[in-house]
Structures are given as C-alpha cells and as structure tokens.
C-alpha cells in the first residue's frame, strides 16, 4: 500500500536531529549563536564549533547510519533472514583487522581508512566465495559462513590487541567499537549513501519478490541471479564505506530495517528510503549522546547504539511473537 506519511515524517526528523547535534555539546550554544553562525555572521568559538566540529560530525554520522541501515535492509532480503546485518557477515571484522594492522605499523590515517575499505571488501569476497564453493549459495549457508568468518576475525582482533603497545590501544579500541570523531569527510559518506540509494531504488519492487523467495521472484519475471549480484554489490559498497569511515558500529543495520518493517510495512519502495533516513537520524542522536553523557569524556558511539539497540530489539522480538 502507498503510505508516504512515514517517509515524510522521517524527512522532517533528519534535519531536526542534525540541528539537535549542533546545539548540544560540552559548550552549550543558544539559538542566536547557531543563527549567526549559519548566516555567516558569527565569529569565534561558536562558528568554529559548528562548522569545524559539530556539523561535519553530525553529517558524517548521518551518512554512516544511513549506509548501515540501507545495507542491512538489502542483506536481510538477500539472506532472507531478518536477523542479518552487515556485521554478522564478518565485514566489520575484516575492516577492523586491516585498520588495526595499519595502526600497529604506525601508518597514517589514510592507510587506516584505505585498509578498512580493502579489509571489508576482502571479507565479503571471502564469505561469498567460501559459501559458494560447492553449488549455489543458500541463504543459510551464507549466513553461517559469515558468522564463522566473523568469529575468525574476532580472534585476530584479540591477538592484535594483546600484542599492541599501550599507546596504540586506545585508538584501536575506539576503532573496534565504532567512532565518528575522525570522520573528516562527511561529503564523501553522504555521496556514497546517495549512490547506494539511487542504485538500489530501481530494484525495490523486485526486492519485494526476492523477499518471498528466489523461485517466486523467477516465476514472477525477475532474474534472481542478476538481482542477487546487484544487491550484494550495493550492500558491500555501503558497508565498506561505512566501516572505513567510522569503524564497527553494530545494531544500526539490524534494528532500523526491522523496526521499519513492523511499523511501516515491507514494501521496499518505501523501506529503502525510510531505512536510510531513520538510520542516519538514529546515528546522529546516538553520536550526540556519545559525546555528551559523560562529557568531556567521549564514548565510542558503538557502545551507545548497542545500549539503545539491545533493549529495543528484545522488546520488538517479544512483541512480534504475539499474533
């Protein structure tokens, strides 16, 4: 059914959360500060805070949250499992290992990001290659392979943390838990998010069929293999970009699509843009909390998403069991 109301509400929510992120912080800013800064009149600390710290960080958080939620939505259809998420497939593990190795060898920030991108792509290829080794991928086989590869990466991460010198540990842990404070290029993230949305949107109606099974999709006029490859490619691109910008942030890709399916229906023509919008807004709020609840101490945003995500998810799961 055509229900654009939720999408419109989410379109309004997104700028509101970014505005909130500009207000709140270790230095409180008032309306006048923000109005002046946005009008280009403000000088000094308020303008610096907004344009160099809070606004880029909020926009970066929005891009990462949107990418994770969109990629989670796509992977859930691909695996036909509502519990699938970019991290369960071991993508973040591969990225984290590559990034931590770059840190361990004292390479620069560019290497860390590039390494994360390469690591996540390598992990995706590894999982899909192993799952495909004998015959076609079944969703269950793919999921199990992903879980096992993720566990393998987890062991390597623990090993690297154990042998790392103390002064590297803090940065590595932040990477491992997800951190947006180094996201200096919000434009790139938002561009990737937009690209992912533009590429996946034309597939939305076909995804409605794929959600009901590959044979059903084939019988109703789609080529399932072509569709699966396209979905896999787009989801990999989004996840790799998100992980290389912000490290491993869990739960966004899992909870946002699940929540939207329960309140807004399963039609992917609305689900895809809704996921990008709500995922982005959610991460902006989570990141604002991460830098304010214990200010001036900053928490890794992954801690906040997990603390918010776990109870919400358990509540939804229990509610969902009642017919």
């Amino acid at each position, binding site marked *: *059914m*055509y229900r654009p109301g939720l999408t419109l509400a989410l379109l309004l929510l997104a700028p509101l959360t970014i505005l909130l992120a500009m207000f709140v912080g270790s230095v409180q800013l008032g309306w006048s500060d923000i109005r002046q800064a946005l009008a280009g009149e403000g000088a000094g600390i308020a303008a610096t805070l907004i344009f160099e710290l809070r606004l880029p960080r909020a926009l970066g958080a929005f891009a990462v949250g949107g990418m994770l939620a969109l990629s989670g939505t796509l992977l*859930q*259809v691909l695996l*036909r*499992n*509502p519990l699938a998420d970019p991290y369960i497939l071991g993508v973040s593990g591969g990225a984290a290992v590559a990034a931590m190795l770059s840190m361990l060898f004292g390479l620069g920030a560019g290497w860390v990001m590039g390494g994360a991108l390469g690591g996540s792509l390598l992990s995706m290829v590894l999982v899909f290659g192993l799952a495909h080794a004998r015959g076609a991928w079944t969703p269950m086989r793919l999921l199990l392979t992903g879980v096992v590869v993720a566990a393998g990466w987890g062991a390597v991460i623990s090993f690297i943390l154990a042998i790392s010198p103390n002064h590297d540990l803090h940065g590595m842990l932040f990477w491992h838990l997800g951190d947006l404070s180094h996201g200096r290029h919000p434009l790139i993230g938002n561009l990737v998010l937009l690209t992912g949305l533009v590429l996946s*949107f*034309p*597939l*939305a*109606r*076909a995804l*409605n*069929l794929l*959600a*009901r*099974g590959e*044979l*059903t999709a*084939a*019988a*109703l*006029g*789609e*080529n399932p293999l072509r569709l699966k490859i396209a979905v896999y490619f787009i989801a990999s691109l989004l996840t790799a970009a998100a992980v290389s910008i912000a490290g491993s942030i869990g739960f966004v890709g899992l909870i946002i699509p699940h929540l939207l*399916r*329960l309140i807004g*229906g*399963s*039609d992917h*023509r609305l689900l895809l843009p809704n996921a990008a919008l709500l995922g982005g807004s959610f991460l902006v709020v989570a990141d604002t909390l991460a830098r304010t609840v214990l200010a001036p101490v900053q928490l890794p945003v992954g801690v906040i998403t997990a603390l918010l995500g776990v109870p919400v998810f358990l509540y939804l799961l229990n509610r*969902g069991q009642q*017919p």
Partner: protein
Amino acid sequence: MTGLHTQALLLQVSDPRAGTRKTLCRNLTLSFNRGENWAILGPNGSGKTTLLHTLAGLRPPDGGGVRLGERDISAWSHRERARQIGVLFQQQETVFPATVMETVLTGRHPYLSASPWQAIWQWEDAEDRRRARAALAAVGLDGFARRLVTTLSGGEQRRVELATLLTQDPPICLLDEATSHLDLKHQVAMLALLASRVHEADRLNVFVLHDINLATRFCEYGVLLFGDGSHRHGRLQEILDADALERLYDCRFRRITDDGHSIYIPV
C-alpha cells in the same frame, strides 16, 4: 494459442549417497494444450515437482526440451514468461511481515514497467488493486487485505498464494499441491474455481496432486510418473486403471462406482 510442449524430455536428480544421477523421467513427449486441465500423479520423490519446475522454465531439462508456444522456454525473458505462466509453489517462504494486499499485488509485477527508472515511479494503480481485491474475494479472503501474512493460518496463507496467482492471471497455471493445508470445503472450492477458468477462458492448468479422486473429478488428462523413469500420459479415464494405480502407489485400491463416477480408496 500458446501451449506447453515437451520433446523427448529427460529429468534427472543427483543422488549424493550413490554418487550417481537418478532418472525421474525418460523420453517424455507430450503437449499440454489450452482448454485442458492436467494432473501429474506419482509417489513421493517421483519427480512431480521437478517436472513442474522444468515446465515453468525454472530449471533446465537434463535432456530434450520444453517449448512454450513456438519458442524454447529458455528463449523467453523472465518477464515475458511470467505473463504466460504462473506457478503456485509447494511451499512459500514467509519470513518478512508483509500484508496480504502487498503480497497479492506482487502478482502484477510482470505487467508493470521493467525499465528501472520508470520502476521507481510506477506503482500498482486502481485497476491492479481492483484485480487483487477480486482475487481475494474469489478465495474467500475479503476483509483480510490489511492483515499480516505471518499471522494467518496455513490454509489462509495458501489461499493468499492462490489469490496472488489469480491476480497474476496468466493463461497457463502450474500448481504444486494446490490443496495442501486447505480444509475439504476449500480443496473442492479452489480446484473448481481454477478448473472452471480453463473452460471459460481457454486457459491451461497443470496440477500436481496427491488425491486421485480430486484429480479424476477436475482433470481430464494426466501424467503418471512411476519413479523409475517410466511414465504414462493421456486421458485420465483411459490410463488410470487398477494396475497402473497399484504400480504407482505400491498399494492396493478399492474402486467404488457412484453415479457413473469412480472413487478410489486405498486398502
């Protein structure tokens, strides 16, 4: 009129334990024509579903060929084919909580624009929704449109699948155990509905069935798959005798004649 034709069809499945391939159906040549109701009968694992999927073009034959109209089935694009052939699967995955209306409307997919950039803006229109509502009414599910498929009973979910097929409204329907999960009233009602469409609008139904009595009641033609690669096809009345039945199901049958109609009961 496009019908389905098989030419020296060979169907095999791999048998992982023996490491060999088991032949389900050897050298099957027959024509399923419009205006006919067909039943595929055979014991478990005899290749009924494999034959149905091969006829639907969802699986390549292991030898021989399937023609849809004048062209080989593999020469049709997925979308063109979906406007000719609809399939009701034996089992349907329902992982995500879609509503009944959303599910039934997927039957219109083959008729909506295939161009990706138009696909964004082209939604099912009032006519598509009218067809979906009519199909839901035909299977006795009016008033269910907003319900989540995941909250329905097995029989109701089966009727949602049938309504999706009616919404797709293709000239050829291939139905794998259409009556599974249905109560006795709905078994008869659904088969009567589907069979009548063949006579009224010159369509073709191919049913995989386990109930011989429903098969003889609603289908004039049949394919018997014996499970060892051999088969028999033709008018059900002519091919379905006591010997064939015993060979087919490896059990004895009692035949009761009522009002000129034969009813078979396993003993």
